[in-house]
């Protein structure tokens, strides 16, 4: 208890920028911050490098250690973090004004140099997993210590959104990255303490955090417990305070356990089962419509997902830029039969490929779909394959329908459209190609949100009509927490963020 306070005092004395914070009564601050939260996450963390993963659990841990330039709220608003403000100067130029008085955990100040280092590193080191997203960056320029201008090769309207997923690094990390990521420093509300690989990460409060009253606890431990039943048992035994990725059929058990609350929220994820558009079945829009008409989405949502999913009204889930209400797809097996009959299809067989154990209840859902489709005369061949094999089969084009979901990270649909509905992106996936859509996607990359909304609505109308995918439901994110937690927010992006959470 003593040491952090001493070092905080020493730090505050030396930092003019933090005078406002220093003026707050110390006793009140100490009182506000107490206790330890232990979270149990479903995936193991793989790395401490924020640019080298797209794992949700790694983000959940690292968001506590590093701050990004921007944050995204649970209602999809982009808000300042290390950037106080940002604006699009023109279609290919973004300017970021940085927050002053922020320091890394080792005391070095956060300035434009950090942004330059972080952005250039992720763009230039193509071994980094996030590198491909930043290839459109042309130049990162330091205007002064607290202003950075980013120019891009083509409009990059989703850049601010992507930056919510990129923690800022101190430029001092250059040249000794191995050592740095062994014990990383960020500007975040928690300092890194230790990582027992495959088991847990320990973090401790960063007392002079730039958001004065945060964090609310002294210690944060994140345990990695991939098995849901084990995660739930640890929560029920009182060993941990929050778990993610609860499946619908576990909800009842948890709800009836005293001291545990179950929270759910519509996720940024839409399930979308895509057709292979170069194969006989998927090529014919009449078959796609018939399949769509034959699937009783509401039954899947109600009976198999126990209500933990939402009906789809457009490819983009509500809340995100581009969402529009195009009305639910109807369930009409008679019409489906008529279409197939008219088109002359008899004994049609579809290969429905699943990536084993990836989505809640997926096998049961696929079996239900197989029954629904057999009702209209389509035989479904369910192929439940190990993930890497399934993906390989998809690249090779050996499927008719592929069970998959898309979490619209980073709360923006540009990635989804760019990947699945451009010729280059879809070439090894669905073989989708439509010049109209491609054009609209390019036009929708501009920074202007009104323009983007308009273009995306046009794209969605085309897709809704053509049905290159079946959108069965929007996913719901379910968490369970101890009732000792205060201020916990069930995130729609599946993150477990505890920066502002306290414990009784």
């Amino acid at each position: 208890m003593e040491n952090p306070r001493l070092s905080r005092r020493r730090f505050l004395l030396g930092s003019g920028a933090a005078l406002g914070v220093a003026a707050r009564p110390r006793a009140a601050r100490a009182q506000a911050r107490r206790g330890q939260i232990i979270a149990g996450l479903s995936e193991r963390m793989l790395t401490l490098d924020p640019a080298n993963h797209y794992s949700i659990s790694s983000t959940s841990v690292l968001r506590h250690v590093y701050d990004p330039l921007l944050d995204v709220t649970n209602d999809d608003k982009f808000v300042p973090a290390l950037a106080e403000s940002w604006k699009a100067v023109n279609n290919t130029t973004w300017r970021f004004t940085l927050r002053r008085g922020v320091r890394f955990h080792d005391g070095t100040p956060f300035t434009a140099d950090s942004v330059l280092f972080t952005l250039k590193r992720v763009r230039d080191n193509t071994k980094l997993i996030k590198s491909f997203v930043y290839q459109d960056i042309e130049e990162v320029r330091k205007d002064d210590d607290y202003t950075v201008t980013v120019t891009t090769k083509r409009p990059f309207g989703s850049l601010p959104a992507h930056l919510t997923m990129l923690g800022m690094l101190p430029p001092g990390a250059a040249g000794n990255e191995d050592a740095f990521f062994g014990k990383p420093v960020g500007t975040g509300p928690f300092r890194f303490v230790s990582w027992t690989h495959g088991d847990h990460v320990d973090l401790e409060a960063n007392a002079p955090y730039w958001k004065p009253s945060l964090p609310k606890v002294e210690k944060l431990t994140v345990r990695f417990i991939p098995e849901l039943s084990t995660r739930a048992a640890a929560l029920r035994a009182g060993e941990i305070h929050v778990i993610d990725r609860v499946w619908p059929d576990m909800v009842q058990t948890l709800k009836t356990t005293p001291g545990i609350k179950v929270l759910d929220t519509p996720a940024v994820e839409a399930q979308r089962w895509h057709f292979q558009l170069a194969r006989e079945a998927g090529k014919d829009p009449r078959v796609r419509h018939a399949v769509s008409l034959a699937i009783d989405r509401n039954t899947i949502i109600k009976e198999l997902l126990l209500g933990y999913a939402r009906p789809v009204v457009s490819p983009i889930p509500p809340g995100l830029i581009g969402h529009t209400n195009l009305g639910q797809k109807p369930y009409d097996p008679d019409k489906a039969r008529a279409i197939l009959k008219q088109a002359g299809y008899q004994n049609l067989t579809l290969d429905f490929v699943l990536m084993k154990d990836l989505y809640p209840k997926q096998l049961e859902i696929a079996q239900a779909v197989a029954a629904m489709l057999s009702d209209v005369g389509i035989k479904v061949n369910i192929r439940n394959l190990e993930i890497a094999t399934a993906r390989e089969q998809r690249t090779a084009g050996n499927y008719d329908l592929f069970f998959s979901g898309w979490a619209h990270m980073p709360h923006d649909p540009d990635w989804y459209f760019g990947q699945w509905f451009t010729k280059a992106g879809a070439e090894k996936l669905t073989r989708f190609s439509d010049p109209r859509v491609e054009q609209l996607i390019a036009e929708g990359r501009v920074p202007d949100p009104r323009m983007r909304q308009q273009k995306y609505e046009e794209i969605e109308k085309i897709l809704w009509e053509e049905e290159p995918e079946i959108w069965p439901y929007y996913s719901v994110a379910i968490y369970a927490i101890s009732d000792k937690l205060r201020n916990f927010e069930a995130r729609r992006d599946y993150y477990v963020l505890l920066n502002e959470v306290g414990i009784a």
Partner: protein
Amino acid sequence: MHAYVLRRVWQSAVTLIGVSILVFVILRVIPGDPAKMLLPEGAPESAVEALNRHLGLREPLWVQYGIFLRSVVRGDFGQSFQYRAPALRVVVERVPATIQLALSAMALTVLLGVSIGIVAAVRQGSAYDYAGTVLAVLGQSLPNFWLGIMLMLLFGVTLRWLPTSGFHGWQSLVLPSVTLAAFPTALVARLTRSSLLEILGQEYIRTGRAKGLGEPRVILRHALKNATIPLLTVLGLQIGTLLGGAVITESIFAWPGMGKLVVDAIFFRDFPVVQTILILSATIFVVINLLVDLLYTVIDPRIRYG
């Protein structure tokens, strides 16, 4: 004897080279693209290609194997694709948890299995014998995942005597060890019972009793020592298996051991980690088997190899 040892060591080395080739080739011919598993679903094909090149996977197979073999000799097993860290380090970090679990499960197995076996054999046909048989049948037939979850719910959630999962302190070792030991304990108990019964019927045991040796001495010194031979073989194999990791038990108890690591590495096509684990565990397996073979000659002087 020396010639025998030399020959066995040479055979072991050949086995290991064979294992390394097999592992290397099988990993690369099964479908699945490591770069695709690393990158998110929405990564463009160019990024997949570039990453595969970075990972050295675009070289011909024999070139990859050559590079691999050269590095392994220097103690470098390559970089883990998933963890972005040396594969050997990733694996070695899991060794303490793996060994702790294996050894405590082994200790339970020997202690409980042999004791139950002895009691059942000595009191053949008694209630103890039947109880032992029931335990042995249960131990061998209850699936690990069921037993593990039941133990966790009873001792972790309901009674709260022990932690449900994780790797911290001896308390967290209890439930996974018991779960893991259930099967081999049953095996060892049955084996001890049957081989002890066989030996107890032999003439030298009768001679021992006739010359007035106490019952404990007859059973422990004369009978058990001879009953140990088949046990050693089974235990040697079990140790190898346990050290190689116990996937299901590790998964249930979120135990950071080697078993779960290798399964995840296979799913994610993290070749260097799979290679490291398989080659290391093959080495352990081969060495232990070698030691067991050599131990035979120490325990039973009648066994001699030319």
